[in-house]
């Protein structure tokens, strides 16, 4: 399981109800169910990945986060997880609001466009960055609203959401983000993980 999922799993308390939005083939869901006694549900748009989840005995609903989160009542989950898909929505703010309505807390991870390799790619090559976390070309990327760790922190603050924990990941290391190191973490991390609440 990838490092990002391990960090997310550590943020989730045992014996809770969790919704994984864009759960893909259910790797994180399976881990949470088997290791943390989580009552876990997934929402996934890809038919193929829905089948993969069913193969694992996971409860998954085929659907689209932008339309199908509405059906869940307020605060019906302890946590709602959104891993690296916020940037792919037409209206990310609407999705964030929905996550925070449905979940008591939300865990959002974002690929960091402020990562030095991304910046260097654009600076030196002058073409849209292609990295491990951003593997697609500009014309076939699902990403519509790329942001940096700093952008996301500023956004969350501007909406007066509470940030419980901000973590920065690069290939090997996980570290805490705070006010003093925000600039540095924004430069040296390829992924940001945030535990937030409305």
């Amino acid at each position, binding site marked *: 399981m990838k490092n990002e999922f391990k960090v997310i799993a550590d943020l989730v308390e045992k014996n809770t109800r969790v919704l994984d939005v864009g759960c893909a083939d259910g790797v994180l869901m399976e881990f949470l169910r088997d290791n943390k006694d989580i009552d876990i549900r997934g929402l996934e748009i890809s038919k193929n990945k*829905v089948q993969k989840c069913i193969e694992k*005995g996971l409860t998954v609903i085929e659907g689209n986060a932008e339309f199908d989160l509405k059906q*869940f*009542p307020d605060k019906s989950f302890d946590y709602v997880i959104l891993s690296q898909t916020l940037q792919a929505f037409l209206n990310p703010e609407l999705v964030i609001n929905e996550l925070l309505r449905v979940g008591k807390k939300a865990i959002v991870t974002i690929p960091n466009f402020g990562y030095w390799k991304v910046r260097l790619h654009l600076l030196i090559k002058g073409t849209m960055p292609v990295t491990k976390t951003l593997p697609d070309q500009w014309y076939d990327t699902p990403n519509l609203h790329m942001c940096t760790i700093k952008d996301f922190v500023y956004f969350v603050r501007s909406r007066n959401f509470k940030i419980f924990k901000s973590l920065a990941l690069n290939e090997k290391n996980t570290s805490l983000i705070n006010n003093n190191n925000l600039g540095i973490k924004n430069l040296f991390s390829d992924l940001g993980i945030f535990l937030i609440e409305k």
Partner: protein
Amino acid sequence: MNKEINLKTLLVKKPLKLDCGKTINNFPIAYETYGSLNEKKDNAILVFHALTGDQFVAGLNPITNKDGWWSYAVGPNKSIDTNKYFVICSNVIGGCLGSFGPSHKDPDTQKIFGTNFPVITINDMVNAQYNLIEHFGIDKLFSIVGGSMGGMQVLQFISNFPDKAQTVIPIACTSSHSAQNIAFNELGRQAIAADSNWNEGNYNIKDTIPNKGLAVARMAAHITYLSKKGLQEKFGRKLQEREDLKFSFDADFQIESYLRHQGSVFVDRFDANSYLYITRAMDYFDLAKQFNGNLSDAFKDTKAKFFVISFTSDWLYPTQENKDIVIALNAIGADVGFAEIESDKGHDSFLLDVPEFLSALKNFLDKSYAAVK
């Protein structure tokens, strides 16, 4: 309707109060079972059949000498694996394969019921079938499964008996018959009524059955079970055993011949009055209405695990109507999964060889069974 074959039948002695107000008792339910019930009696699956189905869900149907209606899904090593599970399926009341229906004699008058048979509902069908669970001494079914009208029975069953099933699988169905659904059923009923042999339901099953009207009803309904794309790909404008158009009203096109065939084989195995009664039961089905318009309340007392399945090309019970069930369940935090299966085979997809559907059904059942073990 060959009655010489020995059908397994449970005679229900307990009175059953029907939605129409009448009470029936000492009535037969014809059923069939597959596989064997284990010692703990925790491996039973109740399968509900659709409009024209019967208890012969798998193996060879002894009446038609064809495969059971859900042979793709039910049998040894299949999605509903009879090596593992004990499958029960019964003919609905109002039906014509041994269960109490309009072709039976009214015990009071000794005359065939015909349209004097009480109007029955999905609720009545389910309450009648519950007697089978008691008959087998099953405290809790592992699963209840059904497509189309079978799915409606699944929803009604778990609403009536919230702690009697571990898992619940409504397939290609709806919680409420739409105007379009009612319209198509009415077309079928009127086709039967327009056949002079029908005679207000008082026909002689042995010789003067309203087979023309029933055949037309089946032809019209059959179109609603298929998709436009599926029909076009299978038949297109292909001609039936001829080089060119005959400038007549024979079946020039393969699709005409196909529909005529569907109609004619149907009348050999189905009773016209049963068709009226069962389509009526479907039309009356509105689960939310039973709970003052709140569908979620139908499921509020159950802890069962739901898996709702729809098909992309099903326009009779489209994905949105299946999703409405999912939405109602999510509104109360129920354990519900949902998958829309890609298929161009229309509403009939659930009865056919659609591999993604069959594997999803198998995986859901087997993983759920392993989890409760």
